[in-house]
């Protein structure tokens, strides 16, 4: 969404988490088909990039709306 796709190391840098933690979350997202995984090589270095699927985007919108409503209800 904000980026067309994002690679593993950029994620790690942005979120400041461990390899294992990040990999677990990404695996779960992939299992739910919210993201698609693309594996390639830059020379001999492996490069894995991730992109949101249509379903993933919709699920995220739904999640945001849910959070918004939760906050609104909590205020009143």
């Amino acid at each position, binding site marked *: *969404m*904000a*980026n*067309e796709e994002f690679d593993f190391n950029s994620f790690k840098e942005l979120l400041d988490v461990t390899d294992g933690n990040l990999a677990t979350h990404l695996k779960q997202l992939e299992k739910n088909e919210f993201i698609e995984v693309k594996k390639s090589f830059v020379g001999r270095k492996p490069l894995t990039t991730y992109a949101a699927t249509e379903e993933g985007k919709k699920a*995220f*919108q739904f999640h*945001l709306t849910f*959070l*918004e409503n939760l*906050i609104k209800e*909590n*205020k009143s």
Partner: protein
Amino acid sequence: MRNAQDELAEIKSIMERSSRFLSLSGLSGILAGVYALIGSGIAYSLIYYPKPPYGKALSLTNPEYVISNVMITGLSVLLLSVFTAWLLSRKKSKKTKVSLWAPASRRFMRALFIPVIIGGLLCIGLYAQGQEHLVAAITLIFYGLGLFNASNFTLNEIKYLSYCQLILGLIATFFPEYGLVLWALGFGVLHIIYGAIMYVKYDG
């Protein structure tokens, strides 16, 4: 809880800002190409008939008449193409329930039309300076730049179309005698090809 609401609003705004305009139909490209080919045919008959469709040191018996009619033809092709694209995009956006006036569409239109309009004004300036042989090159180049810019706000593939237009435009700069042929290739043939590819790929 104020902070959380702000966070959510900012996330939504980031998502919105990155959304692209996807209502452009490949069919509008094909039709625009057809209009351009017809327009080129008209321009050819106005300028060159009965000589070949390219030539240096062209001597026109009635230059004002020819040039103004060629400009009218070009303008009509442009207006028809834009109108067709608008009609087809409106139809497509109704299906996907995306408004044509959404920020995403406006970003796309601004990105495409600012270079195109400036290019058009530059052409008027060129004509005023007696450099009308560069008009074909300028239209192709500025259209190509507009497409390249707009590719960030719609399907990224149109950047390949932009590269082709830019190449044709540069050729036209160095070989202005082929201006009309290159114009027909860029606005006509290329649009038909890309329109067809996009139509087949995304089913219109």
